[in-house]
């Protein structure tokens, strides 16, 4: 089902959580709402679900105006950050709950068959008789998903679905959610503050800040072409150098880069750690190494330029670098934003 938000506004007491957000989500799309806390992403999700009412604007499900349809009748599957499994019901009872209370009457046998099917879908066969307190966090999250899917929702909404899980489980569940989405083709919106999760999982990433959509697009679009310093910084580690644009080139303490079409003036140059190279000889930005951090996939080097700017970049694990060494940083690529 296609979801469309039109100039949606939400204010809590004096705090304007969502300001004039318009967004279209195609049928079958998997969209991430990404933003720091307080950016309004969860509020948007809850408004789509009907758990909050919009103060202004409209929300359409297909051609139907769903703005004032209560959550009970809206036909959404909602997965809560802390699962919200019913602690006094078994896993199977949790999954069956939606079918039992539904206005559409179902045969008992049909409900049981569907529970078995859903348990298989979320790979929890045989755990139907356990209570939520008796299974792990990752398993609880999968039960929550099965429960949300049990009522054949038009749209699946997930609020920070992996936020409470540890890194390894999170990684596996991400792949698995992608698979389920491919299998079911259900329109899915999920909220996260983890850029990696959003980029890994979503067809389209919608980046929010202070209740506004700042930028949206595929992972490739937002990564390769961030349109603001906020997006640049929020998506990952970034080095910032003061720069000046003259005649289509940006100059920053010993380095220069083509920025054809940009007006002359002061600017900021942003480069990812992987966009920088380190060499013992010039040319480049003269800098000295202050610290070396060893990581499983390489070495992260922290260095200071002569003008006191901090730089972070990666070198190959075999590269013998030590704190105190001097050398030159060269720019492979960078983004320049006017200030």
């Amino acid at each position, binding site marked *: 089902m296609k979801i469309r938000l039109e100039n949606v506004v939400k204010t809590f007491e004096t705090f304007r959580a969502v300001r004039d957000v318009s967004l279209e989500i195609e049928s079958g799309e998997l969209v991430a709402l990404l933003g720091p806390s307080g950016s309004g992403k969860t509020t948007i999700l809850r408004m789509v679900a009907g758990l909050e009412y919009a103060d202004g604007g409209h929300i359409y499900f297909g051609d139907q105006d769903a703005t004032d349809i209560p959550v009970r009748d809206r036909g959404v599957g909602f997965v809560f950050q802390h699962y919200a499994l019913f602690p006094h019901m078994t896993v199977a009872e949790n999954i069956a709950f939606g079918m039992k209370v539904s206005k559409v009457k179902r045969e008992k046998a049909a409900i049981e068959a569907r529970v078995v099917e859903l348990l298989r879908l979320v790979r929890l066969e045989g755990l139907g008789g356990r209570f939520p*307190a008796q299974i792990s*966090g990752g398993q609880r999250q999968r039960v929550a998903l099965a429960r949300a899917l049990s009522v054949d929702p038009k749209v699946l909404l997930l609020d920070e679905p992996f936020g409470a899980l540890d890194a390894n489980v999170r990684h596996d569940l991400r792949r698995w959610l992608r698979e389920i989405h491919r299998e079911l083709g259900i329109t899915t919106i999920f909220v996260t503050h983890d850029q990696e999760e959003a980029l890994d999982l979503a067809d389209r990433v919608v980046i929010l800040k202070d209740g506004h959509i700042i930028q949206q697009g595929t992972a490739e679009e937002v990564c390769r072409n961030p349109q603001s310093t906020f997006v640049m910084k929020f998506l990952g580690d970034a080095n910032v150098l003061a720069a000046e644009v003259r005649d289509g080139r940006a100059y920053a303490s010993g380095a220069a880069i083509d920025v054809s079409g940009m007006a002359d003036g002061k600017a900021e140059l942003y480069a990812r750690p992987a966009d920088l190279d380190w060499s013992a000889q010039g040319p480049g930005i003269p800098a000295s190494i202050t610290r070396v951090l060893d990581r499983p996939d390489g070495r992260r080097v922290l260095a200071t330029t002569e003008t006191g700017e901090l730089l972070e970049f990666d070198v190959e694990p075999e590269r013998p670098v030590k704190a105190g060494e001097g050398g030159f940083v060269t720019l492979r690529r960078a983004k320049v934003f006017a200030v």
Partner: protein
Amino acid sequence: MGATRTGRKPPRVGDQPLFRRMLIGIVLVIVALLIVAPLVVISVEAFSKGWAVYRDTIIHPDTLHAIGLTVFAAIVAVPVNTAFGIAAAWSITKFDFWGRRFLLVVIEIPFSVSPIVAGVAYLFVYGLQGVFGPTLDEYGVKILFAIPGIILASMFVTAPFVARELIPLMQAQGRDLEEAATSLGASGWRTFFSVTLPNIKWALLYGVVLCNARVMGEFGAVSVVSGNIRGQTNTLPLHIELLYHDYQAAGAFAAASILALIAVFTIIAKVALERQGAGRVRRPALVANSAEKTQ
């Protein structure tokens, strides 16, 4: 680690043997004098003139009427206050509205105010010189010095019991479960009975037990509004006082022993419920849920 340490361990704070014995001794003496001795006296005195006198006191029409009235007051007041408590706890914890915090404070007032103040206040509201008194009198409705007054006074005193047990628990549980149930298509009633109630049942029962004990034992507020008419508006606690003033000590103690018996059952129920996790903010299942959150 090395070998297990033997010998004297250094005393922790306040752990010296002398101090420990003194403290325990003082507590035991106070408990004996203040709590155990009066209870022993009640049971001894109740039977001091023999089983026959005890039985006669209990089956005396006035005593039976007092027991009946007390039970009746409880039958009306406890369910009403239970419903009120659930409604209040639900509104305070699940909705946002203006004056929420204020309501939270107001609900607690009956705990902090002396019951006799409540009784006197009811006199001013429903008495013949009171606000509604003359109007009610015109229509022949009698509240003071009658059963409605007794029930109203009991309800005032016990209004907070259920709400106070439920509010911290429901606050800890949050709104997620209800939201989940509603998003799955459950109606409000269905959500309440299938999701909310099973998660608060022990705390609710705990509140009901405490509320019931207090209704049956309430003296101050009821004594002002009841008028102490023997065989008509006398509850059990008032009846005990009446018997005592009539120099029927054995009778008073016999009647008191019934209240003491109710208290014993209340304590047993209370301990049993606390074993189920009521009376504390968190239940085991919730702890398991929230342990995950902290990861």
